């Protein structure tokens, strides 16, 4: 009993002590640094997907320091906070990172749709931009309604539409989709319902029939879903999975004998973790969408190897070049480039959230710029504007060859017109609900 009391007292006093000195502390105070607040998830059921992204993100920040001494001479600092993919913990991380530096956390990548929703109302008040690469609120692509949210590169609806285009390509043209049957096998959650609207519209427009089959969370057992697929005899299966579900889907497809070459995953079911979970050989032939290519042949990856890993500062060498690690690098690059752009307008010091927001909104990375950054064709050229917070909306497809992911298509764009109409409609609804007047900031 005495031991407990002492322990309790110690716990409490340590806690108060460690919380008390935290605001504005954390990093080296004397030097002006650009502070990056990093939220990620490395443990728990989704940890295998979250860890490479967080590592890639931080490895790129390390590269900036080691190679260039920061961004335009302003050193980069960062702090990582573990969210465990849990909305409440994510909000706590956000509040904590917010207090860590006078300029705030540069820009937050919430890394979870739930956390993104929780932050959408807070971000404009705190003046912290949110960047949501491939998750979050799709209609935030309309920057007039969501000035602080950036679903950069591409969003769920663009992706769903692009998947349909990819299948059409494999079938030999959009007209060939008429009369085909496509099954959407989705995680039975809000996330899995995201593509329903656009796929239904596409199936009306293009004449294929769409069968939606939900997999209850967590999706570690899919006997009955694949029985139904067997009964439906579809031409293609679109896999909208998450976590353990994706690998199990591929495995169960093999189990009942469905060809993996007829399965297309979305970008959260298309990483090494998913194909490895199913077994490398069981996944051979499986396609998946991505917003970035995998591989370690890019110049920037080689530089990270040289400047970060060879000096022993890296995280985990086995992540290098994987789909998700590269995505983390891309996320960091986009954020850093936004800071760099903001510095051209506001001067070469550390940037505040509002200044970074301007940088993201006016970001333009041409192919030559990407080449000079060492990214080559890992990502497509991107141009953001106030109306369009998404950018190009391009998706690339990769195929698992038994050992690694290889590119299986060019950059594919979906039905841009349709996606944009849906985005604007949904954003307008939100604006009405919230009593907002859509407008561009900084104009």
């Amino acid at each position, binding site marked *: 009993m005495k031991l407990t009391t002492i322990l309790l007292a110690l716990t409490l006093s340590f806690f108060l002590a460690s919380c008390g000195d935290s605001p504005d502390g954390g990093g080296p105070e004397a030097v002006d640094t650009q502070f990056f607040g990093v939220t990620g998830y490395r*443990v728990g*059921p989704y940890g*295998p997907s979250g860890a490479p992204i967080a590592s890639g993100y931080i490895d790129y920040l390390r590269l900036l320091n080691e190679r260039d001494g920061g961004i335009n001479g302003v050193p980069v600092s960062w702090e990582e906070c573990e969210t465990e993919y849990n909305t409440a913990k994510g909000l706590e991380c956000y509040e904590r990172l917010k207090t860590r530096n006078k300029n705030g956390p540069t820009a937050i990548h919430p890394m979870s749709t739930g956390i993104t929703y929780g932050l959408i109302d807070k971000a404009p008040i705190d003046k912290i931009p949110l960047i949501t690469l491939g998750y979050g609120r799709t209609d935030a692509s309309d920057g007039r309604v969501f000035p602080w949210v950036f679903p950069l590169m591409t969003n769920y609806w663009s992706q769903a539409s692009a998947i349909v285009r990819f299948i059409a390509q494999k079938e030999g043209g959009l007209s060939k989709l008429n009369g085909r049957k496509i099954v959407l096998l989705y995680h039975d959650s809000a996330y899995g319902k995201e593509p329903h609207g656009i796929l239904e519209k596409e199936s009306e427009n293009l004449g294929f029939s769409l069968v939606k089959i939900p997999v*209850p969370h967590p999706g570690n057992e899919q006997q*009955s879903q694949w029985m139904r697929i067997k009964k439906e005899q579809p031409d293609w299966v679109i896999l909208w999975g998450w976590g353990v579900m994706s690998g199990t889907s591929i*495995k169960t497809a093999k189990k009942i*004998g469905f*060809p993996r070459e007829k399965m297309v995953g979305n970008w959260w079911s298309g990483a090494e973790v998913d194909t490895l979970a199913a077994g490398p050989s069981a996944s051979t032939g499986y396609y998946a969408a991505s917003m970035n290519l995998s591989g370690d042949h890019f110049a920037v990856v080689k530089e990270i190897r040289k400047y970060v890993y060879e000096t022993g500062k890296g995280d985990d060498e*086995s992540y290098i070049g994987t789909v998700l690690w590269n995505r983390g690098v891309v996320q960091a690059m986009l954020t850093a480039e936004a800071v760099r752009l903001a510095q051209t307008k506001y001067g070469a010091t550390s940037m505040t959230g509002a200044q970074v927001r301007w940088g993201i909104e006016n970001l333009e990375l041409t192919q030559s710029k990407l080449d000079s950054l060492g990214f080559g064709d890992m990502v497509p050229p991107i141009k953001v504007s106030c109306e369009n917070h998404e950018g190009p909306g391009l998706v690339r497809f990769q195929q698992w060859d038994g050992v690694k992911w290889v590119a299986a298509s060019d950059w594919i764009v979906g039905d841009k017109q349709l996606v944009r109409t849906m985005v604007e409609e949904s954003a307008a609804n939100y604006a009405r609900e919230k009593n907002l007047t859509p407008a561009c900031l900084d104009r």
Partner: protein
Amino acid sequence: MSFFLEVLIGGLLAGIMYSLVALGFVLIYKASGVFNFAQGAMVFFAALTFVGAQEKLGLPIWAAFPFSLALMILLGVLTEKVVLRPLVNQPPISLFMVTIGLTFFVEGLAQLFWGTKVYPLELGIPDEPIVTTFENWGISLAGVPIVLQEINSFDLIAAFVAGILVAILAIFFQITRVGRALRAVADDHQAALSVGIPLKTIWAIVWSVAGFVALIAGLMWGARNGVQFALTFVALKALPVLILGGFDSVLGAIVGGLIIGALEKLAEVYIGPFFGGGIEIWFAYVAALLFLLIRPEGLFGDKQIDRV
């Protein structure tokens, strides 16, 4: 009709996989009255140790098995010594909560030892349909496919493993000296103690056997899902099996698994589409619940007699 049979058989075989996990719960509940929620974490720990020993320590596959088993036994013995012994005679809910604490601990320990990555697990068991009838996948224009009875080889082996496991456990419980002591302990702790059965040793053995069962379940499930944190979720699949079959019956775990597996798959395929699908997540629980209303102690559970 043949499709119905196929779903039914698929469901029964899936149910066997649930039974494998449920067995671990039953063993511990039977011997010590503890509802061990950490069984799912133990499955994860065992499977991760098995692949981690190969990946990180470079052990060959035949050595990884005894290594994992040894570690599971160590974990079981330590759990009994450190966690459960001080809590003898506490209310069942405290014991239950302590096993949830144990869940966090074991999950943390597993990831601390072997990392948080996903590992593939290839047992060398072919996981393909034995009769391939789907040459006409995607090009079936006739509309009516010829569906033959189709069974997956992996499922069959899983069923076989479960059968052997139950047989071993049955022999162990019925014939060996330790087994008889176990049954005595399950029946009445104090009476067992008073006739000189060493309770602590017995409990340590039970936890070790549960560790062994967890290892088997972890290997079978890991081969299907990949070895990753999500293996801990298999516990949730086993719980309806437990309440249907009774917490303290080995036979109940097997029969309950078969019933739950079959019902769940049939419901998802035939009733699910009317509700937009995905009803599996709760159907097994509701089915088990309705059954409990008729028989509150489960299919094979011990009947409780109330006295004032």
